[in-house]
């Protein structure tokens, strides 16, 4: 369909973009082996001891665990709330529908710093203690949007007749949801959840304003960057995180990717 020349040109472009995307990542891994704690080029010497430092650092462990906990909580909440609002907006026409879908874009469309300072003022004003829950509250807000967006896109492509057919066949509402709608939306939910978790895990700006004295991993990294003495440790930690996430990401891409294959094969 596309000319050979075009395909070749596209391949070159893809390679260049991939290089662009991954050079900084490669540098992160490279500098994790930096002997010196100040980053400069060329690297004066190599050492693996920063990995040991990172592994044994209780602050890193605590920050990592907090990030995972916050991410899981935020993603689960986002799945529940995002799914219900997506179904509601997909199925029903009601007064204020446009307003609600506009509202749902805001957490991602408005800069994070605004969400951050707004929540901070709100929590201070209502006297809520800053802690894990306030962090989760901030993250959940934009995670809901991510899940919602993924799901509504999928739902819009699902013919409404499927649900009706299921009902005609005698299924209750709940059964329809469980045996018909959810499997259809599975890929959207998985990719939405994955993206939501990724965003929460790496979130800095909103977290800066909603955390108390504790650190999530990004906050710990920010502190280490301020200090300027532990940079290779930061890189070691990030390298470990990337390694840890390759497998789930590949798996999820397979699941979401499979859906993509079937969709593109269908000609309307």
């Amino acid at each position: 369909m596309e000319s050979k020349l075009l395909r070749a040109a596209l391949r070159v472009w893809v390679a260049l973009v991939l290089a662009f995307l991954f050079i900084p990542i490669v540098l992160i891994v490279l500098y994790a082996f930096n002997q010196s704690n100040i980053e400069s080029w060329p690297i004066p010497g190599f050492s693996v001891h920063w990995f040991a430092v990172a592994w044994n650092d209780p602050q890193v462990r605590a920050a990592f665990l907090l990030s995972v906990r916050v991410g899981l909580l935020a993603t689960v909440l986002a799945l529940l709330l995002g799914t219900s609002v997506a179904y509601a907006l997909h199925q029903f026409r009601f007064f204020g529908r446009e307003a609600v879908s506009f509202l749902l874009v805001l957490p991602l469309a408005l800069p994070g710093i605004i969400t951050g300072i707004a929540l901070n003022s709100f929590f201070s004003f209502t006297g809520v203690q800053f802690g894990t829950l306030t962090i989760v509250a901030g993250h959940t807000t934009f995670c809901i949007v991510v899940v919602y967006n993924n799901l509504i896109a999928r739902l819009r492509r699902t013919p409404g007749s499927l649900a009706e057919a299921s009902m005609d066949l005698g299924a209750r509402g709940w059964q329809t949801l469980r045996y018909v709608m959810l499997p259809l939306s599975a890929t959207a939910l998985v990719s939405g959840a994955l993206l939501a978790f990724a965003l929460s895990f790496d979130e800095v700006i909103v977290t800066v304003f909603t955390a108390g004295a504790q650190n999530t991993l990004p906050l710990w990294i920010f502190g280490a960057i301020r200090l300027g003495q532990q940079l290779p440790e930061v890189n070691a930690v990030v390298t470990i995180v990337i390694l840890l996430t390759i497998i789930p990401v590949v798996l999820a891409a397979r699941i979401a990717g499979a859906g993509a294959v079937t969709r593109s094969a269908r000609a309307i």
Partner: protein
Amino acid sequence: MITTRTRARIRLRPAIAVGLAALSLAAAGCSSGGSSQTTGTSGTSAAGQTVPTANLPVLQKIGKGEGQLNLIAWEGYLDPKWVKPFEQQTGCQVNGKYAGSSDEMVALMKNGGGGQYDMVSSSGDADLRILYAGDAHPVNINLIPSWKDFFPAFQSPPFNTINGVHYGVSLQWGPNVLMYNTKDFTTAPTSWNVIYDPKYKGQVTVPDNPIQIADAALYLKTTKPSLKITDPYELTQTQFQAAVSLLASQRPLIEKYWDLASQEIFDFKNGNAIVGAGWPYQVSTLKAAHFTIGSVVPSEGATGWADTWMLAAKAPHPNCAYMWMQYISTPKVQAMQAITYGETPDNKLACTYMDQMQPGSCAEYHANAPASYLNSISLWKTPIATCDNGQPDCVPYADWVNAWNTQVK
């Protein structure tokens, strides 16, 4: 970093006036001119000024540690070298949040109405703001044995002791130094003029902090005596404008105003900057990485800071906090911190330990505190509208912030 509406009303103006007067006392009685000399001991607060938390009961006995300690600190103040032994001895895990400026510290303390952090290593210009906002808790200084060995000037200084009530324990103090790459400056510079010299365009760096205006004022004090600047923190409109103009003219020389200590470290190491103003922390870090860095307090003097570990009003872990105050005041730990960071300890006995750890360091960091050194440093304090002579025509800090953001940067 975030503020909230605090319940207590703060009236800082007279309080800071007191702080000014009494800080001049702390400078060994011979302030560098101008500020009115007050007799008497640590500042009496002016009429109507009370610290909202002054009457809170102090801890009588240190109980069992709570297992955690949340500290707000300058970068470099929580080095594992002394934090790890503390954690092992007391079982209090230290969680540190770094702040790069006094304002940030004040904001962090207020964040969420307090109750997050136990202590903050604030400098003189933040202390009174924290105190009068009601964010500090009275401290039972008798529970800190090393306090008796402090230099008298730092035992009950007016920035952390009001009406005999202590709100923290003095920590260390030091200058904002002139840093230079020894490869580019074979002899050490003797004047601040190098950071205003167009010869070094694109290679100068200074802190991104409105208080830097005081550094400019300090320089003008010597180089433009007609302005009659006496205290770099008390500037009339004319003096202020002159300082701001100097900084505005410096702007083309600067590639980056550093916000984080690590930025200055990175810039010197990579050759983005060869001269600039910085903290001793950057110097020590670069020296430890065997970089060709030098530092000096030039002839015009330097601004500086005196830090206190201040106890938060709603500290969640008071026992651990007291244990920390005890620990950080002991001569050996004071010596360790002084050498590692590059500052001057408040504990007289630290000197011997410093020379043990690093011969010559006691004199190098002025731990034997000659008065002449103290006089050459203008310690940070918050500029307010009322000058020391009582005239209301000095420029307040809010204007410093505004000028810094709109005219200098």
